[in-house]
């Protein structure tokens, strides 16, 4: 597989603050690569260095195995932080300026306007656009040169649910087009839905990197509700149960039990066990381990948040 991006020891200091610290990372062609991290963890700074607007303090990175130059950047579409355009110009004119910079053809403008669904509003001034339209125009501009790699930084930030769904659709369509996408976000749900691989940054340091597929594996947790006075005790007798925990329900109601299963056991085993005991469960729900949970675990393993690395 072709390596699209390789980063070695990339570091950025802002005064005494280490925004990015000795980052090593590789992105392969065709991956949808999610960069996760809390706000201020160095995601945007990293992308800024990769796109030539932030000067690295030290370290090295290569695009397509080449030294990064502005010519290489013409083949990478990127939207960092929020859409940036000339407010006094129309969407069309803005795209024309960007097409000139990237050396893209005028025909490509019509094509991307179509992809992002802005053909009708192309001649309106950019400042009259809604946030969702601005975000779409930014993605459209990034697609102008038919880039092999697309970098999106918080593409759904501040959008309403419909806007988020639209952007997500566009991302999926682009990914289906065999492009490599690097997606920075603090919205874990978003990354889990669209990404194939992910990395977690914390305080500028890489704390995890791997495929998303890993996330769903491992032990399962099952939520159980059944009308029985001593359910807790009975669940403890189930040989597949690792731990049993009573959760707090809403507004004083009793919540479901959470049973963490040993490996090799599933919810159906638990159901069968309860049935043999003469108990019928009214609620049985398998929880796959979510990215959110794993993310929090990864951060917890990496040490307490308020400890300053020196």
């Amino acid at each position, binding site marked *: 597989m072709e390596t699209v991006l390789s980063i070695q020891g990339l570091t950025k200091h802002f005064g005494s603050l280490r925004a990015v610290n000795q980052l090593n990372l590789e992105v392969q062609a065709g991956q949808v690569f999610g960069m996760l991290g809390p706000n201020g963890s160095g995601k945007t700074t990293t992308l800024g260095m990769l*796109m030539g*607007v932030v000067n690295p303090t030290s370290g090295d990175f290569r695009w397509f195995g080449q030294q990064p130059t502005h010519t290489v950047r013409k083949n990478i579409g*990127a939207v960092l932080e929020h859409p940036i*355009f000339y407010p006094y110009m129309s969407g069309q004119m803005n795209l024309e300026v960007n097409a*000139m910079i*990237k050396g893209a053809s005028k025909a490509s403008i019509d094509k991307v306007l179509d992809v992002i669904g802005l053909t009708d509003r192309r001649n309106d001034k950019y400042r009259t656009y809604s946030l969702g339209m601005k975000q779409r125009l930014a993605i459209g501009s990034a697609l102008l040169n038919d880039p092999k790699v697309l970098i999106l930084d918080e593409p759904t930030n501040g959008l309403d649910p419909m806007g988020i769904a639209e952007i997500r659709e566009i991302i999926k369509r682009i990914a289906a087009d065999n492009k490599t996408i690097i997606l920075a976000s603090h919205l874990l749900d978003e990354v889990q839905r669209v990404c194939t691989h992910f990395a977690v940054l914390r305080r500028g340091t890489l704390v995890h990197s791997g495929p998303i597929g890993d996330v769903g594996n491992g032990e399962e947790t099952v939520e159980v509700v059944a009308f029985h006075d001593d359910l807790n005790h009975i669940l403890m007798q189930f040989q597949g149960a690792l731990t049993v925990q009573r959760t707090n329900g809403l507004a004083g109601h009793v919540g479901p039990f959470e049973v963490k299963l040993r490996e090799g056991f599933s919810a159906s085993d638990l159901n069968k066990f309860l049935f043999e005991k003469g108990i019928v469960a009214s609620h049985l729900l398998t929880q796959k381990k979510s990215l959110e949970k794993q993310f929090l675990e990864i951060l917890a393993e990496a040490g307490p948040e308020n400890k300053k690395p020196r």
Partner: protein
Amino acid sequence: MLHLLKIDLKKLTNYRTFWVVCGMYFITLAFVTASGMEVLKFAATKISDFGGELNITRVPFYHFPDVWQNLIWVSGLFKFVLGVMIIISITNEFAYRTVRQNVIDGMSRWEFLQSKILTNAVLAATSTVLLFLIALITGLIYSPELHFAEIIDDVEFFPAYFLQVFGYLSFALLLGVFINRAGLTIIVLMLARALELFVIHKVVDVDLLTPYFPLESIEGLITFPFQRYVFLEVLDHPLITTVLSAAFWTFMFNYFAYLKLKKSDI
């Protein structure tokens, strides 16, 4: 290079403020330089004592070759307006953060600056050509006799004028790159010359060095011509040392702007 110029001109020509400010500049420039003689004549008919001692129509303001230097010096007063336009253009790029997006989209920082410098050159060249045409036409109208040698005498002021406007716009661009905010940059541009005069006369106070200060050498390219009509001697050509000094500072302005842009995180 032409490509870079086209990019910047596309940004500007779609910007209404650009047309308003440049329109004001070029119209005022043309009007003031072209109408000087008629204004003086008009004043002579209305104000009884005006022009009493010497017949105003016989003062050769618009005669070749005087007309070149006279009009160029007067139009030099208006270059501040063009400087303001350049400041608006560059500080907009920082305010909208479009400089960042331009670089992300594949411009090098030097290419970005180049596109701005080229626009400066185009505006300076347009001023020069416009002024040449106005001086030529008014000179042809008002000169009593036309001699080719007199007409081409002193035209070396035009390259000097180009350098003056270009150097001044380079200075405005530099201020914009360093300060980033339109209002503050314009104020600094307004005060810069006064500040330099203060430094020249109150701090350094070495006459020998005076002509080599940045703005002083740019202004000194075109010397004040009108005292020749009260029989004082006037430098009727740009001094080569002043030209070299102005060219040096113009280069340095653009070079410093480049260094700043290269070093900063945008």
